[in-house]
């Protein structure tokens, strides 16, 4: 398969014009089949990379020769991330392609440094990593990078990994060998990041640092999504239990009284007032032996709090915090959004398929 042609009209915001011109230049030895390389050694890989570079050998027609010669610095020595070549391998078949990408270095506090972003081109991909080509600053091996790869219609998909090695090739461009992995890659692996319930504190929390997630959201690597809205304690934001109770003292020790509505005389009173040794008797019209349904009906009377003695109340819903034991009317509870993060992750298999 041919490497993905780089469209002449494509522009990458922030990309170096020199680099773009080189990539847009016609390829002299157009490959006829997909290039598959068993990356058994660094040398092999490097050779393939230089083969890829040969496609950009011809200078663009509108580019003066002297400017190109001055733009390409002398090759720099490869800096290895690991001491042994075995550690420096990206295993699996590599597939060549050409896709614009933006790399963001990850700081020690696991936040993405947007100001230090570099534009690059994905030169090849394997199941375990990427090779990027850039003319920007050379990242040191061991640095974690978040890489946004431009996919359909200018949409970026993101992956993360550790720089195995970075070197300057014969054309003076920096090759970055990135192996998927690291803390950021964990975040970007799943399709969705769900909040989890801390069963000891009864609070919802996220399995990752919120600052990290926020920095990834700013990149567009993930998007916050409200999954649910729950009622939480206004003090500690833990989950409460709910009950009906007295609106004055917030006690749940509330008894409901029963009332009777006598149809004939419209008398409404408490059940106890109707109860006589001879049966139910209306105190207003003195009718005896009342029959339910035809003579009277039960009504739900007022609520009486057994703790504070206050009656004639409509009960209210009361929350009791499972963490700090705070009691509060439900109306004063805090409504908390349960937020998940939908990850805009790079599908490596799809990327390979398109290579």
């Amino acid at each position, binding site marked *: 398969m041919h490497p993905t042609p780089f469209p002449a009209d494509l522009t990458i915001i922030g990309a170096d014009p020199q680099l773009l011109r080189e990539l847009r230049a016609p390829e002299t030895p157009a490959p006829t089949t997909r290039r598959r390389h068993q990356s058994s050694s660094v040398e092999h890989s490097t050779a393939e990379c230089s083969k890829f570079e040969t496609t950009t050998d011809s200078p663009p027609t509108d580019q003066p020769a002297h400017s190109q010669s001055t733009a390409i610095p002398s090759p720099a020595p490869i800096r290895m991330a690991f001491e042994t070549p075995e550690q420096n391998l990206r295993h699996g078949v590599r597939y060549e392609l050409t896709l614009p990408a933006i790399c963001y270095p990850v700081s020690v506090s696991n936040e993405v440094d947007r100001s230090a972003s570099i534009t690059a081109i994905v030169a090849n991909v394997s199941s375990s990593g990427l090779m990027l080509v850039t003319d920007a600053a050379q990242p040191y091996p061991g640095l974690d990078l978040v890489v946004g790869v431009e996919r359909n219609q200018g949409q970026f998909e993101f992956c993360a990994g550790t720089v195995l090695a970075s070197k300057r090739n014969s054309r003076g461009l920096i090759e970055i060998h990135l192996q998927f992995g690291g803390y950021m890659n964990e975040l970007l692996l799943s399709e969705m990041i769900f909040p989890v319930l801390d069963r000891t504190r009864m609070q919802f929390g996220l399995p990752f640092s919120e600052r990290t997630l926020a920095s990834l959201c700013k990149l567009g690597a993930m998007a916050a999504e409200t999954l649910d809205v729950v009622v939480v304690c206004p003090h500690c934001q833990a989950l409460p239990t709910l009950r009906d109770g007295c609106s004055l003292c917030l006690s749940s020790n509330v008894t409901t009284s029963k*009332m009777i*509505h006598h*149809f*004939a*005389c*419209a*008398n*409404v*009173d*408490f059940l106890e*007032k109707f109860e006589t040794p001879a049966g139910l008797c209306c*105190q*207003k*019209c003195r009718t005896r032996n009342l029959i339910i349904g*035809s*003579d009277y*009906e039960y*009504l*739900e009377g*007022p609520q009486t709090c057994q703790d504070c003695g206050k*009656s*004639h*109340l*409509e009960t*209210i819903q009361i929350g009791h915090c499972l963490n700090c034991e705070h009691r509060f009317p439900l*109306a004063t509870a805090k409504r908390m959004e349960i937020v998940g993060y939908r990850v805009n992750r790079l599908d490596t298999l799809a990327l390979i398929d398109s290579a």
Partner: protein
Amino acid sequence: MLIPFLLLDGLRYTAVNGTMCLFDMLRDSWRWLTVGPVEEDWSYCPSVAVMIVGLNEGDTIKHALASVYDTYPRMELFVVDDGSSDDMAAQANAFAQDHPGVTVLSRKLRGGKSSAMNMPLPMITSEIVVVIDSDSHLAEGAIWRLVQPFKDPAIGAVSGCVSARNPYVNLCTFMQALEYRRSIFIGRILCSRLGILGIVSGALGAFRKSTLDKFGGWDVGPGEDGDLTLKFRKAGYKIGFVPEASCLTNVPTTFQALTKQRRRWEWAAITFECRKHVDVGNPFVKHFRWNNFFMMFERWLFSVFCVYFSVVYVAYMLIAIDSRTILFSLFSFYLLYVACDFVQSIIVLYYSSVKRQDCLLALAAPLVPFYYAYQKCVTLYAITEEIFTRRSFRDNFVPERVRNATWHW
């Protein structure tokens, strides 16, 4: 011969109200000259429980509550939702959440207005119970003014003044607004002066709680407000009226709805005044009082007897008198009635605090005879069906299970 009879209502109201007005003008002038302007006395402040009872009044209940809440210092407020299918209870509960002292009682099945009003009574500890319709809007200081007559222990109940809230919707509401100013505002001032006031409005009325407990509250309606007032009168209490304690209520906007409302009022007049409390006119019972007798006699004479006699008289006219004389009589009657109404408008203006509105309402004077003729027709129809068929006990004002169980007077 014909004219004095037809003018019975108009003449008697004009003559009596005019006399009262003249007396008040002289008294007020003398007082103004000797004492100066008299300030209202709001020194009496008993505890008050305000009850707002309604059915499907989700749209208006918040406004009614807002017009009542915090207008009096010692007040508890009860809202009873009589099985509404709309969000009345939810609206009232929402109000109660932010406003302490408001209790909302809600019942799942409609049980009728009387039992809904009786529901909070066992929980009320206040001295005075004030009842307000859920579509009513109280004027400023209405509750303060309403409770002042209770200083007199002989007063058992006090009626507020009800006015139309929507007078300018159409001709129907305009005429009702005019009628309310004549019959409720001026008519009740007169009745209370004479000690024969027979009704406390359901839209705004206050009752002494201790006495209300003795009666067991309201009986099954329709017309439960008039029924309770008669009980107070039979027990020897006086009924007060405070024209300054005003309340605005929505009046029916179509003649069909108005006819239905007036039929209920007239049914109640027969049920309670001619059947249930007919003993008021019996001089041999223990609780007989002359003022009660005159009150009932006035009702029987003008609301029942004169209505039927008018029919007989009109029939006699048509048969015995030639058409030219009839036309002349009717035209004379019309002119005199309009003249009487003009005088009544002046009387209303003397007492009124909303003079601009009353001036506007006075413009309808040429239509008043026609409106009262319509009212007399409704009265004739309603009392006939009630006398002969006990129509009120088939009316859906009261749920079927309740009206089947209650006594059919």
